[in-house]
């Protein structure tokens, strides 16, 4: 079993909607890329972050990559129910004004 899966779980809630549970860092972030990049870029993607207990800049990087790829294809990446740790990091990096965040 990939040790990274112990710290992060990705579950599909419906088509184009995923929930991330656990910690997003340099070790687990590639799991998000590999799974979510399978979803067509021209279709909007919704990610529930309510149960993300930790995120660092590696996590931000993968979210930015997903955001950019969808913007380029006239679609959206929507971040939903962001947890306090995610919210704080988005604020200090100035990303709250650049990413689509659902209330």
């Amino acid at each position, binding site marked *: 079993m990939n*040790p*990274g899966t112990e*710290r992060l779980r990705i579950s599909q809630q419906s088509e184009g909607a995923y929930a991330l549970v656990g*910690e997003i*860092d*340099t*070790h*687990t972030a590639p799991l998000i890329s590999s799974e979510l990049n399978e979803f067509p870029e021209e279709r909007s993607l919704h990610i529930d972050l309510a149960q993300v207990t*930790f995120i*660092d*800049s*590696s996590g*931000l*990087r993968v979210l*930015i*990559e997903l*955001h*950019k790829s969808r913007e380029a294809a006239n679609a959206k990446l929507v971040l939903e129910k962001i947890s306090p*740790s995610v919210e*704080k*990091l988005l604020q*200090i*990096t*100035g*990303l709250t*004004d*650049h990413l689509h965040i659902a209330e």
Partner: protein
Amino acid sequence: MDANHKPGRSDPLLSTQTRTVTRIADFEQRYASTGNNIGLARSEVEVWLKGTASTADKQQDILLIVSELSSNAVQAEGPYFELTLSHHPPELVTIKVFNQVSPTLTGRRIPSIHTRLGDDPLSEQGRGLSIVKALSLSVCVDQRLNGDVTAEAVVQLDKGCDERLISGDN
């Protein structure tokens, strides 16, 4: 009561509650330079942080700093990284990460601490040390001639750690 009365420390009108925060032993650990060990380091530091009487918010800040500095160390592809945290009560914690650099990465420049977070928010690189800087009183990154790197951040804990409360209750 005299309107000009100014209570002093021994004034019977004041009750003083003081909780002295004692210094705990340093956290010192060496980890093999693997991505999975960054999460392990955070878990172990989280346990150590309980002894610092810091708030949950500050603990999260410190864990984020640990993660960022450790990630940079792992990217240097050396055999290991060393993580040290020291508590200087009541308000300071220092976080230090040392790593060697893989010989295959000779000439690699260490991450810059001069990148400003607001310059290019959607940049896909180069925000780790800037995040550390935003959360710290000071950050220092030192690279030796042989490529070895030491990164150190100083964090100020919330003033609540030195819980000297003066209340007007008798």
